[in-house]
């Protein structure tokens, strides 16, 4: 998969379940279909929570990256 540049960033560093998912779902509402959001998180639960959220809400995780304690995701709005 080629690298897609994110259109916006959702920074949820320092926040824990369920806030990262809540913030992400609220943020993505403001963008049109096809938008790629970068999510930056420190809650290790997001490693499974963001893919689970995407699966259920019908969106797509393009990329997951982990640098030490920081997780970065690229999430594409599909619906």
């Amino acid at each position: 998969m080629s690298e897609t540049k994110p259109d916006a960033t959702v920074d949820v560093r320092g926040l824990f379940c369920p806030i990262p998912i809540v913030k992400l779902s609220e943020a993505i509402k403001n963008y049109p279909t096809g938008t790629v959001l970068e999510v930056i998180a420190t809650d290790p639960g997001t490693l499974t929570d963001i893919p689970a959220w995407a699966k259920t809400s019908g969106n797509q995780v393009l990329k997951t990256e982990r640098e030490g304690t920081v997780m970065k995701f690229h999430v594409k709005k599909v619906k």
Partner: protein
Amino acid sequence: MSEEKKVLIVCSKGTLDMAYPPFMIATTAAAMGWDAHLYFTFWGMDIITKKKSDKLKLAPVGNPSLPMPNILGMLPGMTAMATKMIKGKMKKSNMPSIPEMIKTAKELGVKFHACTPTMQLTGLTKEDLIPEVDDLIGAATFVDLSKEATVTLFI
């Protein structure tokens, strides 16, 4: 929203620790596009009672998870102390307060149902409840709601 999924949670406890799980699950489910309902009953009604909503406590008696001998929990002031301790820890880890959880849940479209038999029992009226409450329902409406629920939990 993909396909219509519904989570229905019975909130039966009014202690601080038992108030969190329903809100965590309901807000997350709503964020995932689910239809989420909270049904408050018995002591769970404290969560949505104006005078108590922001003053829920952690009970040290009968709670072996606290770092002190259980019998000390009976002493005066211990409930306030345990509550203060857990609230401090929650603040440190950026955990939202119950009033904040209520606000977030409401913004995400979580439905709040109050149990009429409990209101009758405890003498509460609609005016005693926080404005976020959507309706006052009885067991029949609850059963009807649960009929279509994908997940039903009792907390």
